[in-house]
């Protein structure tokens, strides 16, 4: 069975409508909560809000559209931060700590140390001896890095990291406290930066926060999920439906720009993302969902501020319906483009992998309906029952712990 093509033709108008009516209220609520969270942040004079590339760039547009429509002034200065997990990982390479080791171990499981080096340096011309071509293992990697054969790697990484640190100092204007605004979920970036740039006090305000992979979460003390904060899907919490189809949120928020991998050596460093016209491309939206969100926000007024939460509550229910119990129209609207795996790599992951199992899909409920057009609803009911049991099991384990 081929998952590659949706059964129904895409309709941009329908997507824009969905973006406006469903995702619009949800992101308006996010923007209002982001404003409120900043308002209550202590020591505002030494704090700024930085929107993390790439998803954060669109969150900034959402936030600014909200400010313009509501007439509220921003409680804190804000700017874009050109960062990725790769860039954040480099900050800790001079003295690798648990955050960096965990992150590299997860990202490069089963790959060689040389592949890790290529991602970190972005320089295929670096020649590495055979000792670098063994499967990645944290202790061995640190040993190699600190040895003579790792000198060039250290130099290249230090140059790129130095450029990022200059960029950070410029956009934060030297403030000692930074709130990172990003999409979510686990918050690797803030964890890596806490370790790599300890002279700054880091916080994170994400759209969603979720320890979906059950990793260590020392950084959750400084990370808030403004719209969603759950470690897994809960059938009776509509907001958690995004954890069943996180690809949707990433597709809505991530513009068609390359992930940040490197910086120029200029006094004002320029990231590889900042190619000519990059700012115009943040809002370019072939799918229509993000355009719909901005349409909704531009139609808001200060008189509607009290009703944002209530409208969002209804929108979350509608989104749950579309994600968990998708009809064929939902499938057409929410069939999205593949996205890059990130962390310095270019291979893509697909919503409905060609010839793949339903379990390998980024949206299993959508895959069930797409594959089984007649009996799909029965499959969805089974999935929902399985999720209910899984949630209750998790809940009971957590209560016993």
């Amino acid at each position, binding site marked *: 069975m081929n998952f590659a093509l949706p059964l129904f033709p895409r309709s941009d108008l329908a997507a824009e409508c969905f973006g406006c009516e469903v995702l619009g209220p949800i992101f308006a609520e996010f923007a*209002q*909560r982001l*404003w*409120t*969270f*900043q*308002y*209550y*942040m*202590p*020591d505002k004079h030494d*704090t700024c809000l930085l929107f993390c590339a790439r998803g954060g760039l669109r969150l900034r547009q959402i936030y600014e559209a909200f400010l313009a429509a*509501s*007439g*509220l002034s921003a409680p804190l200065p804000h700017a874009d931060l050109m960062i990725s997990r790769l860039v954040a990982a480099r900050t800790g390479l001079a003295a690798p700590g648990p955050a960096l080791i965990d992150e590299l171990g997860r990202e490069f499981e089963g790959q060689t140390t040389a592949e890790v080096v290529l991602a970190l340096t972005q320089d295929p011309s670096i020649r590495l001896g055979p000792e670098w071509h063994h499967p990645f293992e944290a202790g061995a990697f640190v040993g190699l890095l600190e040895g003579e054969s790792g000198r060039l790697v250290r130099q290249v990484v230090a140059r790129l990291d130095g450029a990022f640190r200059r960029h950070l100092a410029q956009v934060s204007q030297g403030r000692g*406290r930074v709130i990172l605004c990003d999409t979510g979920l686990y918050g690797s970036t803030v964890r890596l930066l806490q370790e790599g740039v300890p002279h700054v*006090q880091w*916080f994170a305000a994400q759209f969603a926060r979720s320890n979906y992979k059950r990793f260590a979460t020392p950084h959750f*003390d*400084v990370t*808030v999920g*403004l719209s969603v904060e759950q470690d897994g899907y809960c059938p009776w919490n509509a907001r958690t439906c995004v954890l069943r189809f996180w690809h949707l949120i990433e597709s809505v928020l991530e513009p068609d720009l390359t992930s940040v991998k490197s910086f120029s050596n200029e006094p004002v460093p320029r990231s590889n993302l900042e190619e000519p016209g990059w700012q115009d491309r943040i809002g370019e939206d072939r799918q229509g969902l993000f355009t719909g969100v901005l349409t909704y926000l531009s139609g808001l007024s*200060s*008189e509607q*501020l*009290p*009703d944002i*939460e*209530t409208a969002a*509550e209804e929108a979350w229910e509608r989104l749950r319906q579309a994600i968990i119990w998708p009809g064929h129209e939902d499938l057409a609207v929410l069939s999205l483009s593949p996205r890059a795996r990130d962390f310095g790599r270019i291979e893509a992951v697909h919503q409905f992998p060609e010839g793949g199992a339903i379990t390998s899909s980024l949206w299993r409920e959508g895959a069930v309906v797409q594959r089984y057009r007649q009996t799909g609803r029965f499959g969805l009911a089974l999935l929902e029952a399985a999720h209910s049991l899984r949630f209750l099991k998790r809940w009971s384990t957590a209560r016993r712990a």
Partner: protein
Amino acid sequence: MKGIDLEGIRVISCDVFDTLLRRNATAEPGRVRHVAERAAAMLLRERGLLVSKEALWRARRNVQHLAYRALDMADPTGEVTFDALVQGMALSLGFGPAEAQVFARAEIEVERTQLASNTSLLTWLTRRASEGIRIIAVSDTWHTAATIRGLLDDLAEGHPIAKVYTSADLGASKRTAAIFPKVADAEDVPAGAFLHIGDDAQADERMARSAGLRPHRIFPPRLVILERRLDAARARLARKMPER
């Protein structure tokens, strides 16, 4: 209050909510809902603004949640002030200082209807005051000392409380024990000469003990605890039911 060792005690500090002043059986979600209802009525009557109680309830709940999240992340020993809470809520809803005042009055009015003096404790404290022990109140709250004193004066007439300290005024809370040394300094009495009475196992018992005070925990009547749990469950159930 029998059997309390007062040997060496010069100051008795008391928690306020559910210690000196007992809340009724309304649980926190119900209290916030009452505040929202009253604020919606007052906004319409006094400012001519039609805002649904549902919207105010959600806003009030979220503002409190986010204010404390920001504080816990950036300054865990601090406290959100009541003024900041109502001002932030008013601004986030597109309102100004006049509406913030309405929210503040709605909160205090609801507090008055849901609190009653703990007469047996206050009688015992009055006797200790007559024996020369100084009685003070120490509250983890966003209210100022003046507001708490106003509530005590109204609801517990003739109370023996000589001074009120609040976490909002001192920027330090009982949850982290940071408030106790500040109170001891202000009273110029060593921590070991304090008896601290309160209902919260963490803030009033463990933290007071860790700061060197002698703690004594009291418990609300079991029936009230049961009623509050039922009220909280009813509120959760009501949220799941669409309002028709």
